[in-house]
Structures are given as C-alpha cells and as structure tokens.
C-alpha cells in the first residue's frame, strides 16, 4: 500500500520540464531518499517526459501528461501517463556513443539513461493510455 501519492499534470511542452523536476525532487526528498538518488530519479522522469513530448505526442503541444509519484516503505514508484502514440519497444535499440557521434544525431539516449538510473522501467498500454512505470528501491 502506498504511503503517500502525489500527481502533477502538465501540458506536452518542454517548458514544463523544470516544473516536473521540482515536483519529483520535492516528493522524493520528502520520502527520505538521498540527494544522489533524488538526482537520479529527477533525471529519469525528465527523460521520460521528454520522450512523451517528442515521440508519443510527436512535438504536439497542449496534450496531457500525468506524473504520479508514490512512496512505499521499500521504494518510490513514478508513473508517467500519456494518450499519445504507443512506445515501440521492438524499434528501440541501445545507443552506441561512437556511432551517434559519427551520425551527428542529437538524441536517443533517454531510455538508456532511464534504465541506468532506475531499478526498473516498464511500459504498458492500458485503456488507451501509455504508462511508463519506474521504480527506485530504498538501498
């Protein structure tokens, strides 16, 4: 059972990422996580929301993104929910740094970072919503 749950809804614009980071920082800190762990969760959620804005909503503004932070005795769970295009797991490939530099591409590291920073990252599609569920356990 969740001890404490907080939800923030933002429109799909990168100008709201700072607000998302403040929201996650505030609740992860209140939940008693270390500064380092809070930094990691803040960044993972930023990356997840950026992916929703750029890929799920394809840069279209004004679409809703819900960020829900739940604190449990043993973990913090962040769920990012949107109504855009489904995340295509089959098309996702782990990025290779040298190949990226050569191809002069500017993106593609988001999911890689999320997986490195969180203990688990899962995607689901239920009832027309995409959900990205990220978990960080208390060490």
């Amino acid at each position, binding site marked *: 059972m969740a001890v404490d749950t907080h939800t923030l809804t933002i429109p799909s614009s990168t100008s709201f990422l*700072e607000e998302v980071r403040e929201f996650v920082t505030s609740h992860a800190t209140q939940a008693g996580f270390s500064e380092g762990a809070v*930094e990691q969760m803040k*960044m993972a959620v*930023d*990356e997840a929301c*950026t992916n929703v804005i750029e890929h799920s909503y394809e840069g279209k503004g004004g679409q809703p993104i819900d960020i829900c932070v739940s604190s449990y005795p043993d973990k913090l769970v962040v769920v990012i929910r949107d109504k855009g295009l489904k995340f295509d797991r089959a098309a996702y490939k782990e990025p290779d*740094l040298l190949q990226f530099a050569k191809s*002069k591409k500017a993106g593609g590291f988001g999911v890689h970072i999320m997986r490195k920073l969180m203990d688990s990252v899962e995607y689901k599609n239920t009832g027309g919503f995409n959900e990205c569920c990220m978990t960080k356990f208390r060490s």
Partner: protein
Amino acid sequence: MSNFSVGFRSSGHIQILDLKGELDAHTASELEAAIQKCQGNNQVHILINGSSLMYISSAGLGVFMAYIEEIRENGGDIKIAALQPKVYNVFDLLGFPMLFDIVDSEDDALGKFESSNA
C-alpha cells in the same frame, strides 16, 4: 522564463562558453545556437566551462554529440571543463569521457588546446 544561459568569452583564439543553469530539452536549442554562432565565426576551438551548469539531460548531451565530429573535421575541438560532480556523473553515465576531453579546470582545458597546437 528559461533557466539557462550561455556567456561568451575568449582566450586568444579559444572561444569559451560559460554555461549557467539547467540544460534540458527546452533549453538545448540555446546551446545549439551558441555552437552554431561559434562555427559561423569560424571558431572551432570551443571550451565549455560548466562550473555554473547545475543540470544536464540527454537533450543537452545530444548537442555536444551532434557537433563534435563536424568541429573536429574542421580542425577544432570541444573541450569540457569544471563540471559540477553531479553533472559530470551524467557525462560519465553515457561514456562521454571516452569521446571528449573532460578536465577539472578551465586552465587544464586551455593547456590541452595549447599542447595540441590549437
């Protein structure tokens, strides 16, 4: 209101960019514009001073990735100096030290440009 800015300074023919604030998908275009400005002025020896950079996401890292090859092809380099430890950790997470000179201080970076006859 954007919580990110780029300041321009120079040391000889080295262009120094002072990054301040938080670099994310919203503000990455400002860094991109700054690097394009350097290129437009034929300044390909670029030193990034990150002492006041408090946050970077993959969108910010992507800007460095997008320009490094082109700048090196033109005989220049992007060297990164004085990062806050938590920002350095993000560069390190993606293996950037393998691809970029990332050094402790601006002086170290200037020295590296000098020793490579930049």
